[in-house]
C-alpha cells in the first residue's frame, strides 16, 4: 500500500508561497461583504435581548473546541486510560525476563507499551489515547539521510530502530500531528531526512489494517508527500 507522489517541482515563474504568510489570493476569494446596517442591528439587538432572557446554559455557550480540537478526547480519556492501564498491566505480567517471545512480538508497538516494563514514566505515557500521541512520546529515529525512494526509507527506518535513540535527537516539526490526520491509528516513531533535496519529516505508525506505514511530510508545511509500506516486525 504505497501512495507515492512526486514532490511538486517549484515553478520558477511563480515565487514559492511563504506558507506562514496569509495567502492574499485565497483571502480575496474568501472575502465576505460586510453585513448591511439593518441586518447587523437586528443580529446584535437579538443577541443582547437574549441576555435578558436568562443565564447561559453551559451546553449552549459552546466555547470549547469540541470538534476540531482535542476536548472530545477528554471525554473519552477515562475510558482510554482504563484500557491503556489494562494493557500496561498485561504487558508487565507477560514481559518477564523468561518470556522473550512476547517481548519480541511487542517490539514494534507504541512506545508507551514498549517502555512500560516496570519504568516509572510508563503509566503516564500509557494513559494518553493514541490520538493524543505527542511528539515527546514518539521514539526518535534521528536523521535518516536521503530517503528519496521507499527502499532507502525502509532500510533507514529499520536501521534506526535497531539503534538506541538519542533522547536529544529531534523528531521533527511535524511530529505532533495527530495520527488521524496522517491516516494512521497510532504513531510510534519520527525522524528527519531529505527527499529529492527537500527537508522532510518521517512519522512511522500503523494504519487501520495494522500495516506499518512511514508517512513522509515536507518539513516546511507538513504537507504529506508520500506514504510507504514498511515491513512488519
Amino acid at each position, binding site marked *: 500500500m504505497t*501512495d*507515492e*507522489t512526486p514532490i*511538486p517541482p517549484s515553478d520558477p515563474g*511563480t515565487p*514559492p*508561497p511563504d*506558507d*506562514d504568510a*496569509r*495567502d492574499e*489570493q*485565497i*483571502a480575496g*476569494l*474568501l*472575502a*465576505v461583504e*460586510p*453585513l448591511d446596517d439593518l*441586518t*447587523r*442591528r437586528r*443580529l*446584535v*439587538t*437579538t*443577541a*443582547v*435581548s*437574549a*441576555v435578558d432572557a436568562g*443565564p*447561559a446554559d453551559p451546553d*449552549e*455557550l*459552546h*466555547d*470549547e*473546541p*469540541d*470538534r*476540531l*480540537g*482535542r476536548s472530545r478526547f477528554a471525554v473519552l480519556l477515562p475510558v482510554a486510560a482504563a484500557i491503556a492501564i489494562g494493557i500496561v498491566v498485561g504487558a508487565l505480567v507477560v514481559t518477564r525476563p523468561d518470556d522473550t517471545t512476547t517481548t519480541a512480538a511487542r517490539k514494534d508497538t507504541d512506545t508507551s507499551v514498549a517502555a512500560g516494563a516496570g519504568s516509572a514514566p510508563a503509566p503516564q505515557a500509557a494513559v494518553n489515547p493514541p490520538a493524543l500521541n*505527542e511528539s515527546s512520546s514518539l521514539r526518535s529515529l534521528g536523521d535518516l539521510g536521503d530517503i528519496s525512494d521507499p527502499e532507502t526509507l525502509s532500510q533507514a527506518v529499520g536501521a534506526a530502530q535497531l539503534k538506541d535513540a538519542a533522547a536529544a535527537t529531534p523528531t521533527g*516539526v*511535524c*511530529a*505532533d*500531528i495527530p495520527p488521524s*490526520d*496522517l491516516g494512521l491509528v497510532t504513531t510510534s516513531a519520527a525522524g528527519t531526512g531529505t527527499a529529492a533535496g527537500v527537508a522532510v519529516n518521517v512519522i512511522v505508525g500503523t494504519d487501520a489494517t495494522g500495516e506499518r506505514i512511514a508517512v513522509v511530510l515536507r518539513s516546511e*508545511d*507538513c*504537507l*504529506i*508527500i*508520500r*506514504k510507504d509500506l514498511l515491513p512488519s516486525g
Partner: protein
Amino acid sequence: MSSDSHDAAPAGADDAALATAAAAGDRRALELLLDRHADRVHAICRRVVGHPEDALDATQEALIAIARGINRFDGRSAFTTWLYRVATNAALDELRRKARRPRPVETLPEPTASTSPLDERVGARLDVDAALATVPEEFRVAVILRDLCDLDYAEIAEVLDLPAGTVRSRISRGRAALAAALGNHELTSYRPSESDD
C-alpha cells in the same frame, strides 16, 4: 433597547475593557462589542457553512452565545480568540444541523453566454462556496481562519486547541484541496498533493 444605568465603557474602548464592562452588566458595552465584531463572526460563518441564510442563522447563534456567555470570558486570552472559537463552533453546529435537514434541490441560473465583470465575480463566489464544500471541515476552518481572518498560526492553534504543527499541516492541505476543487483556475500557487486523505 435600554442600557444599564452604569454605562462605564466608552465607544472607543478596547475589546478587553468592553468585555469587562459587558460582563458586569453594561448592555451598551455588550452592544458595542457585538456590533464591532458582527462582520467578523458572519464572515467565518458564511465561509464555513457556505449558504447565506444558514450563515445568518449561525451568526445569530454565535452572537447570542457570546452575549450570554460574556461573563465566562476570563481575559486570559485575547477576546478575539474566544470570539473566533465561539463563531467557529456555531458555524460547525449549523453545518451539522443542515446536514440532517432535508433540503429542496436548488436550481442555479443557467450561465449566460456573455459575462460581465459582475457575472464573473458572482461566478467566482459560487465556485468558491462549492469548492469549499468539498474541502474537509478541519482543513476548511484552518484555511478560513488563516487566510480570511488573518490569524497567525499561534492564534489558530489557540482557537482550535491544536498543536502548531497540526495547524500548519491543515492549512497546507486545505489550500491544496481548495486549489484542486477550483480546478487550479483561481489559485496559481498550489499544486495539490495526490496523497491527501
